[in-house]
């Protein structure tokens, strides 16, 4: 199941990114790819569909690992759905930055690069703050250790999505 999430994230990030991406471990210039010089782009509709798929898989992972009773589930899922609305807002910001990065990639100025990193940091902060802000709301609807288990799963899935995104975004050109 987790593999599906990874695949979906890879497709999503790959669709947004430019060809010839250099990974962090590659110091040498990017290896030739089979793609032409024109980046493959995904439409906003494609991206929305893929993001929806990731969210659905995220929910499945949580459902499979939490083993909620019916009574717990009745209270938990509405809170989770509301929490995800906040997460989606943060993700919107992140995907907008990725699109901007892809658009400016070949011609990026020093100022644009720094601005993007700054705004990426702001999105990271917003993600982290959202998690902390929602903790009391989950604690109100779940027993203590189940709430903690949810935080643990949610953080781990979010980190995995983040790492996958990071891994396919090409490094800033020097």
């Amino acid at each position: 199941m987790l593999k599906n999430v990874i695949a979906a994230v890879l497709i999503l990030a790959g669709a947004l990114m430019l060809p010839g991406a250099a990974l962090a471990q590659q110091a040498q210039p990017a290896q030739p790819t089979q793609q032409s010089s024109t980046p493959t782009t995904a439409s906003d509709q494609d991206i929305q569909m893929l993001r929806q798929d990731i969210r659905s898989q995220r929910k499945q992972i949580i459902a499979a690992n939490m083993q909620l009773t019916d009574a717990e589930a009745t209270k938990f899922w509405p809170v989770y759905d509301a929490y995800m609305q906040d997460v989606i807002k943060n993700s919107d910001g992140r995907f907008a930055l990725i699109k901007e990065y892809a658009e400016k990639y070949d011609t990026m100025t020093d100022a644009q690069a720094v601005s993007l990193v700054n705004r990426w940091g702001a999105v990271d902060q917003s993600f982290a703050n959202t998690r902390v802000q929602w903790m009391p709301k989950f604690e109100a609807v779940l027993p203590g250790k189940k709430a903690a288990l949810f935080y643990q799963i949610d953080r781990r899935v979010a980190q995995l999505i983040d790492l996958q995104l990071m891994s396919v975004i090409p490094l800033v050109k020097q």
Partner: protein
Amino acid sequence: MLCRSLAVFLLLGGALVSAGSPLVAQTYSTPLPTVNDKDVALLRKNLQAEAKQLITKNMQLTDAEAAAFWPLYDQYAAEVRKVNDTRFGLVKQYAKVYKTMTPDEADSMFKLLCDADQTIISLRVQYLPQFEQVLPGTKAALFMQLDRRLDSLFNVQVASQLPAIKP
């Protein structure tokens, strides 16, 4: 190089935790080895050295840039290390109380972990203008991109080795 880092992370994460019900389909058929604080310190030192090598290899700094960059990097890395001390402390504490953890302990540890996450993000934001002073903007951005990627890798590797909380 990244593979070796992964192996060290896996060893470190696995060695610190007790076998439980892992979250992402990992099973431990044999008892995990235990390591002492000295081993952990040595492994972390290796990781720090590898991170530095990775940055060196990807940044392609001129001599003048390197002379200005590395002292600032060392200062930044020292601050990050303090946060990672907290993270490793929490992993140790988690392993110690795993079987008997109370809801309050779980809650407290998670809050501290979130604090650590937020501190790392703040450090990055705080240091970006300083790196921008010693490097061209695109190189400063590249450094932050590499650093963030390494931190993300660190987080996933450590987290993936911890068994899920038993409700």
